[in-house]
């Protein structure tokens, strides 16, 4: 077990002792999701666990800091034998007074003397350099990280650690403000050290539901225990972090009063954003290299994973699936217009009911959805509902509500909060997704299961889910409209078109239902995972 130096640095908060716990069949590692966040990946994890009642699961939740995760949003299934939590950060400390600062200085002085007297160079530091600076991700890098021979004080105050920082400054971010780089260096690697020092949860196989910190931890534990690792990526972790970094206001871009360009098309991104981006890609590579299977949801994501360093032979596409009701759901409009009326503007007898189903968070780009609705409402009558939890990013949710109010659309666009699927789709005519990033949205599959057409941005697997992946699939016909990211006019035009052309809407809904029946059934997805789990568990 990894040694943990100094209680002040340890914040694992494990709910039980992983050293004595009976090894689970599968240790599922998740970052910032299940069971404390509802929807999306959490729903998928919950579904997978419930779908394998014959297997025991340990869930490892990687969180930001103790207390931030809140209460569980799911009732853990009975086959979950343990829930562990690991936190990347310590909670903030109160400012020190004069005596406290003086004591701290003495503590640091003593630490530095001890660090400088260290006989052997740290393998972890060497591993971090090879991982982040040299772009390596081999087994020896993982072995170096798994040695866990670097303490947090050594990282913060040691001379060798500073040498790594200067190497990063010179080779990765030569133009970065060094003061900022210094704090970002600490912010990047301190969580890594906490993860390296986390006690290993024993399991017969590890399944990381993302790369990132969870993927790193899974790779480490897989390396330490010799048990196989599988990685499932819904979205592409590193790409999603890139999008967050592009919008992050905690990274200073201005150097000497000159602001770096921050627009999405700009060829230059600031050195600090680049630093973080390369770090997240390094985390992904580590997980990819250690994994025996890399599961993705779509061809588009597979290509991105290969670009990010995933060995193509390991990648397998396993689409998400939904449980269909007994017998197909009828399309929403029972009386479609006659074929000869297809080109004629056929106004429905009631307002088209449009749903945005998902968490109210920036990555879903609800702002674009609201703007699209505003534009569309100038042409057609819509009943728009935003259905999903808004507590994950209250500030963003508030901004979205303010935008609706400012546009004067409060009577047409309503935030209704989370609802059970049965109550969502039965009361909608169209589902719209405007996300910046998606894997393979369950929302689309659920909409299809209810015979609803979908308008979605061209991210993740959305295009192949709407237009078809294989030739047979494409022959079914489009089950919605694909739009560009952050293009409210395009989204609005699609909404207007579907609002006016009821028959088209009906056809698309029917195609969606046919598609989900043929390619996206929950039982197929679970069967594939069952086979994968069995192979991993039985692996020598």
């Amino acid at each position, binding site marked *: 077990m990894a040694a943990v130096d100094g209680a002040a*640095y340890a914040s694992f908060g494990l709910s039980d002792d992983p050293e004595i716990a009976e090894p689970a069949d599968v240790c599922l590692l998740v970052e910032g999701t299940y069971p404390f966040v509802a929807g999306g990946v959490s729903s998928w994890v919950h579904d997978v666990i419930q779908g394998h009642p014959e297997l025991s699961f340990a869930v490892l939740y990687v969180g930001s800091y103790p207390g931030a995760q809140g209460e569980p949003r799911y009732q853990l299934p009975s086959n979950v034998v343990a829930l562990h939590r690991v936190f990347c950060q*310590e909670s903030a400390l109160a400012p020190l007074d*004069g*005596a406290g600062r*003086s004591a701290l200085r003495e503590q640091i002085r003593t630490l*530095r003397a001890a660090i400088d007297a260290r006989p052997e160079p740290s393998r972890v530091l060497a591993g971090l350099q090879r991982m982040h600076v040299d772009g390596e991700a081999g087994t020896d890098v993982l072995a170096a990280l798994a040695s866990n021979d670097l303490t947090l004080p050594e990282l913060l105050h040691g*001379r060798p*650690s500073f040498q790594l920082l200067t190497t990063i400054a010179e080779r990765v971010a030569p133009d970065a403000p060094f*003061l900022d780089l210094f704090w970002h260096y600490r912010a990047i690697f*301190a969580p890594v050290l906490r993860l390296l020092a986390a006690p290993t949860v024993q399991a017969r196989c590890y399944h990381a539901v993302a790369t990132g910190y969870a993927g790193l931890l899974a790779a480490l534990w897989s390396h330490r225990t010799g048990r196989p690792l599988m990685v499932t990526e819904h979205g592409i972790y590193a790409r999603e972090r890139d999008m967050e970094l592009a919008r992050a206001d905690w990274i200073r871009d201005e150097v000497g009063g000159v602001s770096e360009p921050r627009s999405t098309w700009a060829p230059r991104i600031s050195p600090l954003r680049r630093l973080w981006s390369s770090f997240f890609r390094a985390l992904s590579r580590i997980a990819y290299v250690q994994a025996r299977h890399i599961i993705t949801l779509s061809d588009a994501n597979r290509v991105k994973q290969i670009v990010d360093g995933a060995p193509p032979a390991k990648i397998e596409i396993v689409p998400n699936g939904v449980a269909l009701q007994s017998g197909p759901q009828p399309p929403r409009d029972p009386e479609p217009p006659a074929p000869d009326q297809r080109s004629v503007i056929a106004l429905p007898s009631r307002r088209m009911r449009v749903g945005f189903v998902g968490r109210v968070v920036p990555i879903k780009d609800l702002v674009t959805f609201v703007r699209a609705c505003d534009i569309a409402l100038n042409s057609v009558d819509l009943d728009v509902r935003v259905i999903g939890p808004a507590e994950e990013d209250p500030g963003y949710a508030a901004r979205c509500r303010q935008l609706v109010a400012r546009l004067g659309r409060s009577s047409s666009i309503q935030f209704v909060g989370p609802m059970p699927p049965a109550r969502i789709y039965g009361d909608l005519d169209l589902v719209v997704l405007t996300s910046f990033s998606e894997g393979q949205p369950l929302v689309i599959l659920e909409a299809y299961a209810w015979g609803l057409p979908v308008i979605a941005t061209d991210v993740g697997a959305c295009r192949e889910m709407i237009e078809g992946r294989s030739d047979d699939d494409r022959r079914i016909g489009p089950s919605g409209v694909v739009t560009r990211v952050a293009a409210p006019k395009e989204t609005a035009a699609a909404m207007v078109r579907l609002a006016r052309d009821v028959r088209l809407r009906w056809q698309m809904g029917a195609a969606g239902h046919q598609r989900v029946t043929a390619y996206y059934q929950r039982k197929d997805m679970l069967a594939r995972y069952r086979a994968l789990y069995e192979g991993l568990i039985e692996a020598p």
Partner: protein
Amino acid sequence: MAGIGWKLQRMIDHGSLAGTIAAYLTGVAVTSAPWLLTTAVLTSLRLISRHATGDFVGVERFLTVVYAVTVVLSAPIHVVVSRYTADRLYDRHIERIAAPLRRATALTVVGFALIGAGLVWALHLPLALALVGAPLTAVIGAQWLMLSVGGGMMSPILLLRAFGVGAPLSLIAALAVERAAPAGGAGYLFGFAAGQLVTLGLLVRGVARALPAATDDSARLFPAFVEYRLLAWSAFAYYVSIWADKIVVYVVRGADAAAFYAAIAAVAWFSVIPAFAWIYVQVETAFYQRFRNFYAELEGGAPLRELKQHAERISEEAKHILRGAAAVQVGSTTLVIAAAPRIVHAVGLSPDAGPLFRLASLGAGMQVFCLLEVLLLTYFDLRRDALAICGCLLIGVTALTCLCSAIGWPPVLGHLVACAITALLGLVLVRRRLQTLVLDTFQSQPFGVA
């Protein structure tokens, strides 16, 4: 002291010889004027009192002890209060200076009055002297406290004016009181104390004018004493080291030998005035600016390569100051050594004092070098290293003067060797720090440790 730094820089930037001389003369005035004026007053009093009837020998001994004790005991307070003041100026909480200063002044006055009472009792002074002696000790202690705050907040002109007015007044008042109402030594002491009280009053007025009307009464000075205790101990050790050799000689060889030794050391100390001026001007101008530039660039977002360049400039400037101070001191000491017989004769010492005076001059030069090293290390916030130098100086001076006195060698030789060893140690510490400036600046940052 940034304000005076800019003024000095402007004088130097004129490019004329007159401007440069003016800058260094200002350095002389600020660093040496208070003790030069006080010494001049005491010397004048001694010369005048040769023809007077009062017991001036007792007064002179008392004043020497009072200055020694107040300098040593107020040094830690001086350092901490000046650092506290600088911190409040830096974090723009100037309103937090007045309240702690008032309390510190009250405590200083009471504390040094008690110390003064103890001194008059220990020296067996008569009641008339004792009645003036205790308050005078309090006044001088309070002067040091005001200097520590005023040094950072007041114009140096006002500081000089306080001493420039108070010192002659002390002399005039001492003579006037003694003449008008012959009271022996008590008259001298009363007159001297009156002049010093005027100096204190002017210092208090200057500080008060520099402070804002609004005050934060909740501000406390005590945490600063805890935080800067290493600096306080450094100052204490350094100032004790100035007196340690005299005390050793007094204990080992007696009062007459100690008086002779102290007189030689006091005169030799004058040879450091040019180096003091050099150090002051250089530290307050070029070094301060480079130091400030380093942190301004750091906070302004400079990348590593630029920070390294700035760190290199600081290092070069520090070496420049060390080399310059050494050169100035060597020049000054060479002159003093060459003119030793004349100087010894001029100040009324026996011709035998010549060789000892030369050694004392060398020792004084080394001691100033130690002070410069402490100053640089304090700039880099290396308190422990600064304390190491001061501690080494104190222990070395005490031990080696003791050893020399015991084996019959001149004690001044012990002082010289101790100062030389300490100066070398300081050089090593400063050099080491200059090599790791960027590393130390960053890797000493507190993070997540309680």
